[in-house]
């Protein structure tokens, strides 16, 4: 087999793995669902054109040259997309180093490792870009339909930022490896992957709150201050924005730059990929020591379960970061609350739905971890206590954690607006209880390490959890603003949760 044939074979192998992994993510690992998943995806893509229409439809008439404010908003949106792709790429790269089972096989083969790992780098870039192209299609379609085919250039921009995001992800991960070692890199890279996209939006919101007293991130982007410090109209900083608007020259330059960046990363890092993989594998085999021996704790059987759950949550910073990521969205409202402490701004009402939504989502994640993510399911199932008490202990863990996180926020709110604090507390309770119940009805036996894929094991549970959190958030906000409407919203949310219960798998 010639070298080129060997490499093309490996490229096909990589793409096949990427495709199957994506398919498994979409189908929750069930092969029989492949057709249904593809049909579902097509329907989803078609349906996504509606929200896409609502979000970008009115921008279809935008044409170059744009004023500085519009350029800033468009560039920030593209940067946000890039940050999200970077986050996905970092996650993919980390998985290649720490979770792919084929590294031993590849590295013990007589293949030229830099070539093989170059292909793996390209494969990561293609899968990140492919996913981004898929997600951007409804938005680009809507823009092209309303504003003409020049908007199809946006696909080129998506490809360019996808390639550069993959290149940056690889460089960041390998540099982190060299600087802080495999153990910390795994954690830091995973946390970075989790917070990069959200971090950008939240940073804008915080800036908006601190500067203008509003939660709208556009307030910063369209401000005179932002225009004042922005570069001139002919700067390369605006290439992505100009390329999206159909400027062929900017698009070509952007694509070429991305390919050059990817090429440089491949040339610089493909040979280090192997060393990094070896170090990561060695790290996986090492053990961490816990604090020295201490006396065993007494207490009830449920107390043993609760203690175990809290200990496991505390010991897994990655899971903590994944779960608590939702709490990042609480930072802007918390700052908003702090800013509003001295005045009686009615805008403070806005923080209630954010808190309730976050509580629902956090409870869903924690409930999955405690109820479904049981690594020693056989042990717990053969223990001499009824399943109902096991479940109760696990639910208690979720509710205790939710109370610990949200009680301080509600307490501070109670000083500013007692009624709003009461409504918020009720919303948190209902949102958390609903999400926990949904996770309980749709529980499956899984490993905690599968947390990342929890949303694919039951689409219905995922959507129901999201809609119930949104529903309770809306109900809480409406209770404060339009109480009559809150009754309708609350009834609708109860209907969603009830319908989910009816559709849940029946158990003995």
């Amino acid at each position, binding site marked *: 087999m010639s070298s080129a044939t060997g490499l093309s074979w490996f490229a096909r192998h990589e793409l096949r793995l990427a495709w199957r992994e994506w398919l498994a993510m979409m189908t929750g690992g069930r092969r029989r669902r492949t057709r249904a998943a593809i049909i579902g995806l097509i329907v989803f893509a078609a349906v996504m054109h509606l929200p896409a229409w609502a979000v970008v439809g009115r921008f279809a008439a935008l044409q170059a040259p744009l004023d500085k404010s519009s350029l800033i908003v468009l560039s920030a949106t593209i940067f946000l997309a890039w940050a999200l792709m970077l986050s996905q790429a970092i996650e993919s790269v980390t998985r290649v180093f720490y979770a792919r089972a084929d590294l031993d096989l590849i590295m013990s083969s007589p293949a030229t490792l830099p070539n093989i790992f170059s292909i793996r780098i390209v494969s990561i870039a293609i899968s990140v870009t492919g996913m981004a192209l898929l997600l951007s299609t409804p938005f680009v379609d809507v823009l092209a339909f309303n504003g003409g085919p020049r908007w199809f250039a946006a696909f080129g921009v998506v490809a360019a930022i996808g390639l550069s995001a993959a290149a940056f992800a690889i460089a960041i991960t390998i540099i982190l490896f060299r600087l802080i070692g495999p153990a910390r890199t795994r954690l830091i890279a995973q946390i970075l992957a989790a917070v990069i996209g959200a971090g950008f939006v939240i940073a804008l919101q915080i800036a908006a709150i601190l500067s203008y007293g509003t939660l709208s991130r556009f307030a910063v982007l369209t401000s005179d201050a932002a225009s004042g410090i922005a570069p001139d109209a002919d700067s390369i900083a605006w290439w992505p924005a100009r390329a999206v608007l159909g400027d062929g020259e900017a698009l070509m330059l952007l694509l070429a730059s991305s390919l050059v960046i990817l090429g440089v990363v491949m040339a610089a890092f493909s040979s280090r990929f192997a060393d990094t993989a070896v170090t990561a594998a060695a790290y*996986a085999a090492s*053990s961490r*020591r*816990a604090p020295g021996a201490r006396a065993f704790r007494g207490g009830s059987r449920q107390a043993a379960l609760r203690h175990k759950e809290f*200990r496991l949550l505390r010991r897994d910073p990655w899971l903590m970061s994944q779960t608590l990521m939702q709490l990042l969205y609480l930072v802007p409202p918390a700052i908003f609350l702090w800013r509003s402490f001295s005045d009686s701004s009615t805008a403070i009402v806005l923080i209630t739905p954010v808190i309730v939504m976050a509580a629902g989502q956090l409870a869903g994640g924690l409930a999955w971890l405690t109820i479904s993510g049981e*690594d020693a399911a056989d042990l717990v*199932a*053969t*223990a001499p206590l009824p399943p109902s008490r096991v479940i109760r202990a696990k639910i208690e863990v979720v509710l205790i954690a939710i109370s610990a996180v949200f009680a301080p926020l509600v307490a501070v709110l109670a000083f500013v607006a007692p009624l709003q604090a009461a409504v918020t507390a009720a919303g948190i309770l209902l949102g958390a209880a609903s999400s926990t119940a949904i996770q309980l009805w749709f529980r499956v036996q899984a490993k905690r390490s599968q947390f990342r894929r929890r949303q694919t094991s039951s689409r219905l549970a995922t959507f129901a959890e999201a809609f119930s959190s949104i529903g309770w958030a809306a109900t809480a906000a409406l209770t404060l603003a339009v109480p009559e409407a809150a009754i309708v919203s609350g009834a609708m949310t109860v209907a969603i949760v009830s319908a989910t219960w009816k559709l849940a798998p029946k158990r003995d």
Partner: protein
Amino acid sequence: MNGETSALRLRGLTKRFDRLAVDALDLTVREREFYALVGPNGAGKTTTLRMVAGLLRPDAGAVEIFGVDALSDPVAAKQVMAWVSDEPMIYDKLTPLEYLEFVAGLWGIAPKTAQATAHELLISLGLEPHLNERCEGFSKGMRQKVALAGALVHDPRLIILDEPLTGLDALSARHVKGLLGERVRAGCTVIMTTHILEVAERMADRIGVIAQGRLVAEGTLDELRRQNGRTDTSLEDLFIALVETKAAA
């Protein structure tokens, strides 16, 4: 069996998945007995033991553990029983000592007693240098030892093990076999599935051969030989003959 207490009694135990996995199985294991259940892959050994451990609900039949109906009073049955699966299920983020502390808590063992037993067990299994290391970096053999220690820490009267020697090195396997032998001598009942027929031959008081969900032969090695008219043959030859006869039928 008259006058003898049974640790486990199965009557008409049946379980069907896509096909019949366990077919109206009758089986009795005496108290203080080391019983080995052998059979080809897919014969129904693990399914049977999972039903006994309360991990699967049978479609029909009865499970009695030391006279307790395990289907109507599972908590009482589980209190005296331990289950060790072939794939050790432990928590990566806990140390062996913390894992045993959790197990002891689930079985309601007094902390002082549990702590002393846990130390003793882990040391006897050669895990002393790893007592305070998280299990995430452990080999499969070490994980299996931790799981086994977990099964023994609450001093069960009946221990059910599904392929407990899989993945263990020779020294560890000897440790485990020694520990199980000691438990039987101390009055415990052990039921174990294994594909290593030599282990069954050496350690078991009685051997049950299961094929296609039914018990096709049972007894001591000598009894099995006599039943099959082969007075001087190994368990392996007997096993192959029994399974082939069942398959032909």
